[in-house]
């Protein structure tokens, strides 16, 4: 008894989906996750990887099947079937990718929202004005100043520009609410990152942060465009001269991870690397107090390793 082709198609399709899911969820392509944002990213990656595998295997499978099954046999000089189109079929393969793409788009929007990507940035801009450690920051509070934008009449030296350091042009701000946020000012230059901790007036060549506490990086470049990237955090933001950017995240896994410059910035671009050290909260406090310069006396060695 011949097996109906619809059944075979169904079985092959199901096998394909299972194979895709298996590959997506079992083949690891990513470095370890060290921020609260990373597992969210990895979930998106698994979904995309699964869908991609199903589509790729399906299309390549059909292609190879066709090349074998419909190859021109020796001595056969006839044409194939004169099929010029099939409207229902075309509607199906317009609709399916549209639905898949829509699903992926909505899902990744959700992920992006969870990463804090849709948080209005200028609230965070107000947080620039470094307040002493331990203070609780209030969002959208007193510093919600108007932007210094060129006013609409061109014939006046507009923009009286109260140059409040409030303008953040882009970045990712996590909506951390009332939590205590560690703010670090990041300056990128050819070919190094400099980290400045307003809390203790520490300057460091390495970024030291506590685990499980929100960190907010206020970044600006001194010369050309750089990019701050920590692969284990799955986060990247360009550091731009003249346009402060922001990156907010919470590290979760103690350890040392690379900071990589990801935007071509000159001959030593490849060597522009640093490290981020994620401490246990108690260790971080120790590092802070060890490196805080006791008013003028001895200058703390910047970038010293922590007493772990």
């Amino acid at each position, binding site marked *: 008894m011949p097996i109906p082709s619809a059944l075979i198609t169904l079985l092959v399709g199901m096998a394909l989906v299972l194979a895709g899911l298996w590959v997506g969820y079992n083949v690891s392509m990513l470095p370890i996750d060290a921020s609260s944002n990373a597992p969210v990213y990895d979930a998106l990656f698994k979904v995309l990887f699964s869908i991609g595998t199903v589509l790729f295997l399906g299309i390549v499978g059909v292609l190879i099947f*066709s090349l074998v099954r419909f190859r021109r046999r020796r001595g056969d*000089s006839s044409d194939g079937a004169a099929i010029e189109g099939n409207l229902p079929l075309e509607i199906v393969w317009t609709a399916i990718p549209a639905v898949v793409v829509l699903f992926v788009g909505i899902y990744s929007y959700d992920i992006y929202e969870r990463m804090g990507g849709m948080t209005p940035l200028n609230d965070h801009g107000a947080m620039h004005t470094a307040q002493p450690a331990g203070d609780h920051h209030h969002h959208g509070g007193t510093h919600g100043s108007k932007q210094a934008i060129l006013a609409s009449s061109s014939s006046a030296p507009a923009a009286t520009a109260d140059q409040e350091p409030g303008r953040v042009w882009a970045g990712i701000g996590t909506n951390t609410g009332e939590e205590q946020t560690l703010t670090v000012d990041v300056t990128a230059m050819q070919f190094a990152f400099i980290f400045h901790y307003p809390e203790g007036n520490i300057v460091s060549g390495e970024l030291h942060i506590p685990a499980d506490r929100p960190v907010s990086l206020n970044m600006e470049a001194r010369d050309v465009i750089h990019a701050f990237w920590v692969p284990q955090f799955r986060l990247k933001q360009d550091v731009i001269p003249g346009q402060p950017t922001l990156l907010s995240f919470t590290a979760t896994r103690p350890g040392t991870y690379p900071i990589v410059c990801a935007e071509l910035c000159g001959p030593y671009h*490849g060597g522009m690397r640093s490290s981020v050290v994620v401490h246990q909260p108690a260790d971080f406090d120790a590092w802070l107090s060890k490196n805080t310069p006791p008013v003028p006396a001895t200058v703390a060695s910047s970038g010293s390793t922590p007493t772990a």
Partner: protein
Amino acid sequence: MTLASPSDFQAPQQSSPDQGGPRGLQPEGWLRYLSFSLDHKVIGLQYMVCGFLFYFLGGALAGVIRTELASPISDFVSRETYNEVLTLHGTVMIFLWIVPVVNGAFGNYLIPFYVGARDMAFPRLNAVAFWLIPPAGILLISSYFIKGGAAQSGWTAYPPLSLTTPSLGQVIWIISVLLLGGSSIFGGINFIATILKLRRPGLKMMQLPMYCWAMLGTSILVVLSTPVLAGTLILLSFDIIAHTGFFNPALGGNVVVYQHLFWFYSHPAVYIMVLPAFGLVSEIIPIHARKPLFGYTTMVYSIIAIVVLGLVVWAHHMFTSGTPPWMRLFFTIATSFIAVPTGIKFFNWLATLWQGKIALNSAMLFACAFIVNFVFGGITGVALAQVPFDIHVHDTYFVVGHFHYIVYGGTVFIIFSSVYHWYPKFTGRMLDEHLGRFHFLLTFIGFNLCFAPQHWLGLNGMPRRVAEYDPSFTTLNQVSSVGALLMAVSTLPFLFNVVVSAFRGEVAGDNPWKALTPEWLTSSPPPVENWIGEAPLVTHPYGYGAPADRLDLKMVTAEQIWNDPKP
């Protein structure tokens, strides 16, 4: 729909002795390929040969890059030289190889045939467009030898880096790209005018071969987006020469505006490189599968959709730059939706193969590998369109892998496929099949070996455009370099094949593939004005399979296709 009946047109004559015929490139006539010829076929081949020369140059530059990256430290060339090399590699491959060949070479050669014209609408402008290319290319290369060297800021030339690197090289880079952009715009105007205005009487738009639609869409993109790049680069040159501050933050300028303007051209540039390849593969697959192109109408509409969407997705290159959240969201959605019309095209090609009689020759091998590579690149492309995904892998080797799957695995594979397919028309001789398959095998393996590992490297922390990297990435980089070496080796059988077959190849006859598109319905190589006598009216260029008795494979020459007495 029925086929054009033989009474619709006169039969083209067989090769006349003074018009070439199956004698290869006429030795007495080869000098015209170095002349300011107005013949669209000569110009097309000028584009082709010139493009291949720059391809070998760009490939050599890629060789330098892969040699440097075979070890994790900067040890092969100096860091400055490395940045010059990667800038030149990108610029040469995009502006001097892919855009000129996939548009200029095949477009000039095929479009007049497809619309039933004797030449392009503006032959002189056409020749000018080509002859802008060699000086621009030589200028670009010469900048390597001047004081300070060539541009070092990548093919994107982002300020303020491009304002701080040696300025003479950067200015020469700008002039060269402006010349090439001008050439591209002239070509685009010519294609639009030829396709819309020069069609043979009686030939309707919806009867044109798909490559015409692809070139129409491409040319619209060229005309709309290239001038924006030109204007941007003029402003950038002001910043360098006159010390204005458009893009210089130290003088109150805005660097992100440059990125918007740059990508307004340079994203459509991807479609300028890829849409013509979509058109060419739509010509090649039906012929070798002996089946009509599946879903002609949807193919046309998907080209239109790609053109429209292609103009509004540029900022997905800037997800980690200074783009506000709402903008990221809009460009994610727009970019993702390009996958829908693109997907339609791929499903239609698969449906064209289904139930065909597929001859898996070199042209077809490259065309099918194109489908595999491009689907892979397209899937990573949809992933990259998602902001959260892109934030991690932007400016990493993942992106390098992705776009090489699109432009090399996609377009360059189709250029090779097209050379195998149209070489008999260009020269009247066949390319050697065994060498062709060997070339395919080396290219396919080398290509995947080179670029597939780069996705993993990017995901795990290797940024792009670096001369040195974390030692833990050494092994995969070496695999990638071996793949690049294989790709370099793979050009040898190809070159040998192309040169030797021009003189010793098997004589092809006018229509070796028994094809129905108009360029095959004349002699090989074709006479100066394409047809002796009136141009054939081909209203159904993909009419394979029906009626079976008149279009079966027994037909040998174009004359016989059309003059076969009714059974």
